């Protein structure tokens, strides 16, 4: 029996707060952002942005050998009345407006997609029903681009569901007009062989609110890169994430909040549970407060709960501050383990083993789940967490 300890053997937590004249968040990347895949060298795995990723499991998405097949993913959009759903070519001006690919796979996705999806909520339209986008993998390889645009003062909830089996590289752009409110829930509930690499770019308008909920359960490799910039002051971004990393899975969430405008807020909370041999979760949280971004208020946090031996967590928060004229800035990262001593304690109070594990994991995620603010999504997440736990017990 292992002795009680707070930091599991297979975990790293390294944080930094840098007060810099020049951003190292940008210079840490191997190449400047570009829409052209040819501008990025093929990664070999030692680059800062790739060092945690098992390149050999990316099925060629990173080195140009992955080619789109006819049976990639089937995308279905169900949208309430008033919403426009289009398929457009790459010359459409709305594409890439929220952000530019920052690594080779994102640029590969941009260079290789055939048609991009654009979902538009006109200005001042307040939706009462969510827009549902189903991305179902049919066993092949696909490159995608999706734009979701909200006009000024529009309000919408978008649920993007990833299921099935696929090798998918994609860019997703969120464009929020002034005063718009967008909540996006992206669920990665893939079958076990799927590979999913995506960059999410949010451009938050003046006084707009962006809430992103990223939920990753499935897949062999999932590597997501949510990025936020602001188009005007008064913008708010809440980035919530929840992942449950099982045996052999690699789940990587890399975030960047670029406070490039004064008087904006950001709050990042990602929580993950891991169980099984070679379960690997990576969380990188970059927050950049540029010199002109006075009045910024930001906080980022990552918590991991390691349920069994053999799992590994790498958690790296980075906060870079170029101005002292801010409201607040902070970060936290912690990885703890549910160990045999905790199990003994709970069981010594009459609680059966499976119930003890459930109690701990539910408690761990509960606070985060409650912040989502969408009851049907919350219920589904709790059910899914229970399912993951049942699978582990069996």
């Amino acid at each position: 029996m292992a002795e009680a300890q707070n930091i599991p053997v297979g975990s790293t937590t390294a944080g930094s707060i840098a007060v810099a004249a020049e951003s190292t968040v940008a210079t840490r990347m191997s190449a400047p952002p570009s829409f052209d895949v040819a501008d990025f060298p093929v990664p070999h795995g030692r680059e800062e942005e790739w060092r945690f990723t098992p390149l050999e499991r990316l099925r060629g998405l990173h080195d140009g050998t992955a080619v789109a097949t006819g049976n990639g993913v089937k995308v279905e959009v169900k949208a309430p009345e008033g919403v426009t759903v289009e398929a457009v070519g790459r010359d459409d001006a709305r594409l890439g407006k929220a952000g530019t690919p920052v690594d080779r796979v994102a640029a590969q996705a941009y260079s290789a997609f055939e048609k991009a999806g654009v979902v538009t909520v006109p200005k001042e339209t307040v939706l009462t029903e969510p827009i549902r986008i189903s991305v179902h993998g049919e066993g092949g390889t696909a490159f995608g681009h999706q734009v979701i645009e909200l006009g000024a003062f529009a309000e919408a909830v978008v649920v993007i569901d990833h299921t099935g089996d696929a090798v998918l590289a994609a860019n997703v752009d969120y464009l929020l007009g002034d005063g718009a409110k967008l909540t996006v829930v992206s669920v990665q509930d893939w079958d076990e062989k799927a590979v999913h690499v995506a960059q999410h770019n949010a451009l938050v308008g003046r006084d707009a609110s962006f809430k992103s909920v990223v939920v990753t359960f499935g897949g062999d490799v999932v590597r997501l890169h949510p990025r936020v910039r602001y188009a005007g002051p008064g913008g708010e971004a809440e980035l919530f994430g929840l992942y449950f990393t099982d045996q052999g899975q690699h789940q990587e969430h890399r975030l960047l909040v670029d406070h490039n405008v004064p008087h904006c807020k950001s709050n990042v909370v990602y929580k993950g549970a891991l169980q099984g041999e070679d379960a690997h979760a990576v969380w990188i949280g970059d927050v950049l407060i540029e010199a002109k971004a006075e009045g910024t208020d930001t906080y980022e946090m990552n918590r991991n709960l390691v349920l069994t031996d053999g799992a590994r967590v790498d958690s790296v928060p980075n906060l870079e501050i170029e101005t002292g004229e801010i409201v607040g800035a902070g970060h936290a990262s912690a990885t703890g383990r549910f160990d045999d001593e905790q199990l003994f304690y709970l069981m010594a109070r009459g609680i059966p083993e499976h119930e003890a594990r459930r109690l701990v994991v539910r408690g761990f995620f509960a606070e985060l789940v409650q912040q989502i603010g969408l009851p049907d999504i919350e219920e589904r997440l709790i059910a899914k967490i229970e399912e993951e736990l049942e699978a582990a017990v069996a």
Partner: protein
Amino acid sequence: MATLEIRDLHVTVEADNATKEILKGVDLTVKQGETHAIMGPNGSGKSTLAYSLAGHPKYTITGGTVTLDGEDVLEMSVDERARAGLFLAMQYPVEVPGVSVSNFLRTSATAIRGEAPKLRTWVKEVREAMERLNMDPAFAERNVNEGFSGGEKKRHEILQLELLKPKMAILDETDSGLDVDALRVVSEGVNRVRETGEVGTLLITHYTRILRYIKPDFVHVFSAGRIVESGGAELADKLENEGYEAYAKLDGVDTKGGVSA
């Protein structure tokens, strides 16, 4: 009347790639309503006895029997033992991240009682038990043992004792690390449970101090993995004056059978 019977209990532990026998034939009978103090020097095996009874997987039972009302305790899993009526107040209660005290207590009470306590009466029950132990109501919203002081951890253990109402309570060095005020509050909690006459208490301690607050019916001296002398409360006074030196010499001597009660 509930009875805990320990007969010729032998327990080993794996340490440094070697098997070490810690308990070398423990005999003890504890009946409902009785309080037995087990006293002994560090390393004599007192805590091993406590954790072995609760079923901690670190310890291997190599001989002997333990029964509660005739039921074989050693065959039961840890949670089954608790549901059968055994309670271990731990010396070092562990932190359980993400689980609030209130959620933990209710889940535990539900498991022990076999049904969820009615919410309204339960809230009152918990609040009153916490008041008696001088615990701030905000305590219920904290995570189990996370950031608790030594005194808070022990109060939390005794709170569970009061709420779970076991047949047999094993208190493992509940007095260690407590100042006099905390010791008094915790002892009063134990005494409230004892006064019901429905619990048998096995009080494991290194010091006689706690026995000024909790009067034992029987005192047993533990040395080198077994009980080497048993007597009434007066035996504690002898230990207070003479210490454990006299018993250290008995190591290796066959003292089996020196058990009362």
